[in-house]
């Protein structure tokens, strides 16, 4: 049984008050605990566990966010990321509602795997979704994340149908997600999405390797090199054939 306290606390992995890569402007990024994916390259392996993290009262998060409001003049706001924030959608609803009443811009950075009625309700308060698509091919997606991409693609359809703007984020991993054919297929799949505002290519990095070790797990891609500038330019080139705004983060 949940106590009253539980319904008002979120499991927070960490807070970055000066996020400049997770949505427009300056963002307070709340990294939430828990994820049902197990991406081979995950940079935040310490968010996997749903029950870990700091139990943070939504009042405290609300307060910290309001202190940041004056920094949001160039389109900034608050971004819920993770882990997978949709896992805590029910508890996020009242917080987002209050943030929205304060006029704050809200981003949701999600892998799009969960779309229940809590997530749908939560999306009402979200201004912009950052949808992480790990691979367009379902088998490859499963190989990378442990789950198929069926839900993620449905999530995108839902956003399109409900006129919810989103950016598509794509982690470009050498040999894992940078196949020529896959890039074109993704382009073809999404090219007619009117709600898709921007595509962000995220080059592969190894900054989170130590976290796997800290968690007592073995890093899955020890031999994968970082992308060469040519590989990044190549992928960008392909996506630009389908999308207006493609950036490399």
């Amino acid at each position: 049984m949940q106590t009253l306290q539980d319904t008002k606390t979120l499991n927070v992995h960490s807070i970055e008050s000066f996020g400049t890569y997770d949505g427009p402007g300056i963002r307070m990024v709340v990294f939430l605990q828990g994820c049902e994916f197990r991406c081979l390259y995950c940079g935040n392996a310490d968010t996997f566990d749903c029950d870990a993290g700091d139990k943070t009262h939504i009042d405290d998060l609300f307060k910290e966010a309001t202190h940041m409001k004056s920094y949001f003049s160039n389109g900034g706001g608050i971004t819920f990321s993770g882990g997978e924030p949709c896992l805590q959608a029910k508890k996020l609803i009242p917080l987002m509602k209050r943030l929205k009443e304060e006029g704050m811009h809200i981003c949701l950075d999600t892998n799009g795997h969960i779309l229940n009625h809590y997530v749908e309700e939560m999306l009402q308060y979200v201004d912009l979704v950052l949808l992480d698509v790990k691979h367009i091919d379902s088998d490859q997606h499963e190989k990378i994340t442990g789950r198929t991409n069926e839900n993620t693609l449905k999530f995108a359809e839902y956003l399109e149908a409900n006129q919810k703007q989103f950016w598509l984020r794509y982690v470009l991993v050498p040999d894992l997600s940078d196949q020529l054919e896959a890039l074109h297929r993704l382009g073809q799949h999404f090219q007619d999405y009117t709600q898709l505002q921007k595509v962000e290519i995220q080059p592969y990095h190894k900054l989170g390797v130590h976290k796997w070790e800290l968690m007592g797990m073995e890093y899955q891609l020890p031999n994968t090199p970082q992308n060469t500038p040519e590989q990044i330019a190549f992928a960008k080139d392909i996506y630009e054939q389908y999308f207006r705004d493609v950036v490399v983060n």
Partner: protein
Amino acid sequence: MPIMIHYDTRPTDRRDARRICNQKSKLFDNMITDIENDVEPFVAGVWNDTIDVRDFVMKNMTPYDGDASFLQPATEDTELLFDICKQAVKEELANNGVRSIDPSTISRINSHAAGYISEPHEKIVGLQTDELLKRAIKPYGGPRVVEKACNEHGIELDPKVKEIFQYTKSHNDGVFSAYTSEIRKYRSLGFLTGLPDNYARGRIIGDYRRLALYGADKLIEFKKADLENMDSPMDDYKIRLREEISDQIIALKEMINLGERYGLDLKRPAANAREAVQWVYMAYLAAVKEQDGAAMSLGNTSTFLDIYIERDIKAGIITESEAQEYIDQLVMKLRMVRHLRMAAYEEIFAGDPTWVTEAIGGMDHCGGHKVTKTSFRYLQTLYNLGPSPEPNLTVLWSPSLPEGFKKFCAKVSVDTSSIQYENDDLMRKVRGSDDYGIACCVSYQEIGKQIQFFGARCNLAKTLLLAINAGKCENTGTEVVAGIPALKNEVLDFEEVMGNFKIAMKEIARVYVDSMNIIHFMHDKYYYERAQLALVDTDPKINVAYGIAGLSIVADSLSAIKHAKVTPIRNEDGLAVDFKIEGEFPCYGNDDDRVDELATGITSHFNDQLAEYPTYKNAEPTMSVLTITSNVSYGKKTGATPDGRAKGVAFAPGANPMHGRDTHGAIASLNSVAKLKYESAQDGISNTMSLIPKTLGNDDQTRVNNLTAVMDGYFTRGAHHLNVNVLSRETLYKAMEHPEEYPQLTIRVSGYAVNFVRLTRDQQLEVISRSFFDKM
């Protein structure tokens, strides 16, 4: 307007005869042009009848709302001159930081012959001595310090100079003849440090614009009238003022002579843009020839000079390129200002700083802004002459400033890390004037109407340890404050420690005020700033500027005591040499009220304590949270603290959170600092933010936009000051290894900027160890 023909007194063999001719006729031409072209007359006002530069500025300035596209690169002459300067600086660095010293001539307004970088190319003339980067002696602060400085560079101080001080007293002699034993103890144990008792106090800003607007004759006239008004009956106050005014009048007369040495007629007002720049510089030069105060700010000159520049451009007398040339050459001269310091001075003020602080921008009381094209031109010098710590360019920021200017400032920060920002809305509201400059790093000073008495700072972290050690110094066991009981509990109890801490603060404050009163009494007596004060109203308002160091250590320590379990580990004498900390506690720098309120509370409490005691000349007490680079040396003198900081470890600079403890990222860190109330630290609250470029955003445009938003956000939250560094740790490491490749690498530290390569290795490492916000 009287037309003066100038006769140069320098030997003619040093000059090219034809050029003399040209120069004279050019000067003459300008005056003729004035009359013939009939440049627009200035809008008249109160400034015509009384000294009121602000009124002149308000009535005549042209606010500029555009972007930076009009700016011009350096001219050939400027580049040629600056190449000579760069070479001279190189020689200086190679020669242990000093190019040459004149050990015989006591520096006064007229002590040295005219000096040039390369005369034919100089649009703005004047050097402190007769040779570029030659340092002069100013022994009135304390001749022993000057002698030491000379010796450290293998030079003997002229026996004549030593002899003079056998018959006369210096500031330093005066202070020590009056110091109490308490003050000496607090000073030698490191509770009070960096006190200006053996060097010049600085910080007083002359209104250097006055010389350009009124000319020396008129200023003398006004001062004479003030002197007349100080009539019978004579009392202490009037006698002192009469002596001061008389000295000021002499200084003004000497400024006229200084001008004559350079062929300039400073008796009359400046007639055009070039003269206005030149006159302002001459007034400033007089000040830095006489005084080697730690900070010798320039004031707020850009908008004033813009009036002359705009007028000349409009009349077709000068081009944009010439306008930029005047400013570039003025700034070049300011970059070449030097003082002779002894090596120990480096500990508190590292990197040979001069604090030629110039405040740029800001709003006026009527809701308009004070940004002009010349505000841009000053910043443009950081491109035309490259990045530099001096002059200490300080942008008075308001979210209401025009976008074009805000964006340009942010771009300059991203490119050069050379400017600092201060909250104009806050200072105007709390302090009252919209015509102010910044003394040193963060200290508000109404230009020409107000001065301040610099008070260095006291070590608040060490003061906290008195509370835990029954009033004894944690290093030596010496009793410092009587009446602090030994703690009853083994585990530190918040209320008990706090009670003792308040007793310690009260005592430190009392002794600190005593020391300030003695120091400034003596400084006025033995090392009076006649040149600066000649350009300030007679009997100005005065602030005494106290300071504290170690605020973040104190806040975190109190937080640890309150929220975790802290047990001192004591040596055989009962002194706490270390602390065992069990449990977690919130740290300052994460926008967490539980600890931020402790920082805020201590700041205002200590500020109130300082205000309890009478001051010399009834100066109004203010306090800063600022360390310069002394955070390293303060750390060395301070034992382990209850926050887990080990003995000897450097403090965070200024009001910064301790390195690595601000785990919520840059904005949360800024927000903690923004909570400190400016009302209780009106001498300024310094904060330094270092970011790697990528943290600010993915591309140049985003970086500029985000930095602008940071500034808007931070100052809207009521914060006071921000240094912005945009560079990577790798660059700093590389500069440590290959200093010769980074002669101009500039980094902002508490309230000023330094050439990174001029810092000691300890200080370099400390800068590198600081929080660099590098999350993405």
